[in-house]
């Protein structure tokens, strides 16, 4: 069981993309856009569902799977699942074979053309190890829909919120 995980309650997301930019601030403080995103927010829809228009914002980011297929497929052992559940991709070890990109069921791994290496959300493990929240989960989200921590506890919190919303 993961000790730490990142959960984004997409139902509550407004698509403001603040988390995308917070992620950029952490990893790329003074660079211009380079198209590489560890986390990306995109509109799913609008489509017609049960006669009504529906659309929801989706957030594509590493889910730090219990049994991550990317770890198994990497020939360089560049991706490791830590004991606390965080799946870390070490871009320095990566040789750019892209097998992990093909294997990820969530399209959460990107490719850095400049470095010729795969890249993804490592759940800000350098921050987590120092007792700091991951950049996107550090209370920046105006919808309060980004959760970091114990998966069971997060599930409870989201359930309570759903009840309070009454919808």
């Amino acid at each position: 069981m993961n000790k730490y995980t990142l959960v984004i309650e997409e139902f509550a997301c407004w698509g403001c993309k603040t988390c995308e930019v917070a992620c950029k601030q952490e990893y790329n403080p003074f660079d211009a856009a380079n198209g590489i995103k560890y986390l990306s927010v995109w509109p799913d829809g609008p489509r017609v569902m049960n006669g009504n228009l529906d659309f929801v914002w989706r957030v594509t980011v590493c889910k730090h799977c219990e049994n991550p297929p990317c770890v198994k497929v990497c020939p360089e052992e560049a991706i490791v699942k830590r004991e606390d559940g965080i799946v870390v991709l070490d871009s320095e070890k990566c040789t750019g074979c892209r097998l992990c990109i093909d294997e990820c069921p969530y399209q959460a791994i990107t490719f850095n053309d400049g470095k010729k290496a795969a890249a993804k959300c490592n759940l800000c493990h350098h921050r987590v190890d120092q007792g700091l929240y991951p950049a996107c989960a550090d209370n920046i989200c105006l919808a309060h829909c980004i959760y970091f921590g114990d998966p069971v506890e997060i599930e409870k919190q989201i359930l309570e919120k759903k009840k309070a919303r009454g919808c």
Partner: protein
Amino acid sequence: MPEFRYSNIEREMEVYGYDSFVKSHCRMCHGGCGVIVYVKGGKVAKIAGDPDCPIAHGTLCTKGLASAQLAYHKDRLTYPVKRIGPKASGKWERISWDEALDTIAERILTYKENHGPESVVFGYGTGRENEAVIYRIANLLGSPNVLTAGHFCYGPRICTSIITCGTNPIVDYENLPRCIMMWGNNVTISNPDEYKGEPFSVALDRGARLIVVDPRLTRPAVRANIWLRLRPGTDAALALGMLNVIINEGLYDKEFVQKYTHGWEPFVNRVNEYPLDKVEQITWVPREKIREAARLFATTKPAAIQWGVAIEQQINCADNNRLLMFLMGITGNIDAPGGQVLNRTPNVVNVGQFGAHGMLPKDQLAKRLGGERFRLASRFAIIQPKCVWDAILEEKPYPVKMLFLISSNPVITRANAKEVYRALEEVEFMAVADFFLTPTAELADIVLPAATWLEMDYVGDFWKRHGYILPRRKVIQVGECRSDHEMLNDLAHRLGQGQYWWENFEQALDYILHPINITWNDFKKMDYIRGEVKYYKYKETGFSTPTRKFELYSTVLEKMGYDPLPQYREPPESPVSAPELYKKYPYILITGARMPGFFHTENRQIGRLRELHKDPMVEIHPETAAKEGIKEGDWIIIESPRGKVRQRAKFTLGCDPRIVAAQHAWWFPENKDPGHGWEKSNINILTDNSLEGCDPAMGASNIRTFLCRIYPEKRASYE
């Protein structure tokens, strides 16, 4: 195991080795959000939210997080320049602040001498907390002409709320409304004025019902209990229809109506002119949905209306605002906890006093451009931009010789951009203060380098109506940039206004704060100051209006010669008002939906924000696109009777097939031609600015809805 805490300043400092941190108050939009700025080696290293901020509670937006990318941008203007070639030649020469300000002062005094102070027009764009200094310098000079967005943005809410109930009623999210009606607004993206998306989100998380009024599908509209998808520009009719239900079903607050309103009977008679079958026909909204929404809003207490600027950029501007206030009022939600509160700001020198409106001589006030036509706007020192362009181009009713535009890019943001461009080409002398050489600045004679919020001290939010003031503290200095306040304080001395200004601007901040007996030095150690919190104040003192009542029938508008009761006017260019034109321009265009990362024309040069929106996009229903031979992603031409622009097609079911939704405020800083592509995708090439199409009281330009046709760019013309 480490203990996690949000915005853990001590830990951030240790782990990243920052030298210091400064708590400040972001102003990438109008202000509002408290931030923590971490500094390393004298430079901004990181921006985080301040959880102690009572406005956004530590949450942020894309723009705030990218502030350092603005401050340190390679193209930023960091010293004053003067133009040495023809206008829009892109030929500039560095000059000193002294030369820049002396030249501007000399021009102002010469025009004042030869053509009167009214020939010098100061201006700003949307509110950037520089309003008070700009009005001060203009009023003391004797110019009644300050060119702003006030005719169609926020100004109308101030003017109409003052004449209706004394001040702008603000949603009381702190006390959790049980029903929120979001009207012409998406606070989660725009975070406008007093409002931020965070408390709205919390209210929904705590169970508030939601009604959304919007022609376009937004995520809030998906989450709404009721979405009223109205025909663009018919807000007033929809509000009248809802009032009709509330009144005729007896769902209003009888005590409030009886004791505290003025003009109930004539108001009811007017509302009865809008039965639901008529309203359905005007608005396209099924009558049952209108009824359902009216009942939900009127019977859920407390309830509030999250309103926005979309209803103001229309011919019905003033009445739209008044009608929404009437919905708040007769349901008993005005000044109610969790409703819409008439907040008390801390008792500091207010924007009006600081703006020195009382110092403008009466005979100069009488010369305010368009003052006789747009009398409500003029009462609040707001002018209609076309009146300025006409005065430049035709010298009517008198010549305007000089513009001084601060944080304003009217070539992109004002209606009928071609006319704006002509006027700026024509005007004899223009000074601009901005961060970059924008398409507007490229037409100036002198451009001054403006400071970002990271480079200034100020009493943040002191013009707002949420009841708080928050200190904005200077963190860095970039080049020779100066804040708008500092440069105008300096200029004022050179204009001979020294006795009314200060040796340095910190003393002005002391002046703003002096009524509460603190100095800037004291204030900058505080997180914020809040005014007195009190509800239902009108029960003791009445409303601050001529009748001391909540004016459903406006005695002020009546005196000015306007209809004292609200009415619906058809948009000047719609299928109903212009059926012949509609045959040639068969779609209703809407524009102005906010995009994360941009603030009107700003931030298109900031890489990580531009990355969110590479090209201007126009939303089209797939059926409409098929009919016009347009494929997803095509560059298409959008054409109105005024001109054409190009944007890229994005298919969506979220727009009615009769409507297309284009983006606003586009220019291309990456285009190094001095025009920076100002005319390519700028939606205001298509908008109309004729005075007949404006709101008769406010002069609001009707830029949100008009007729257009669309076709693939690769085809030569529509036919």
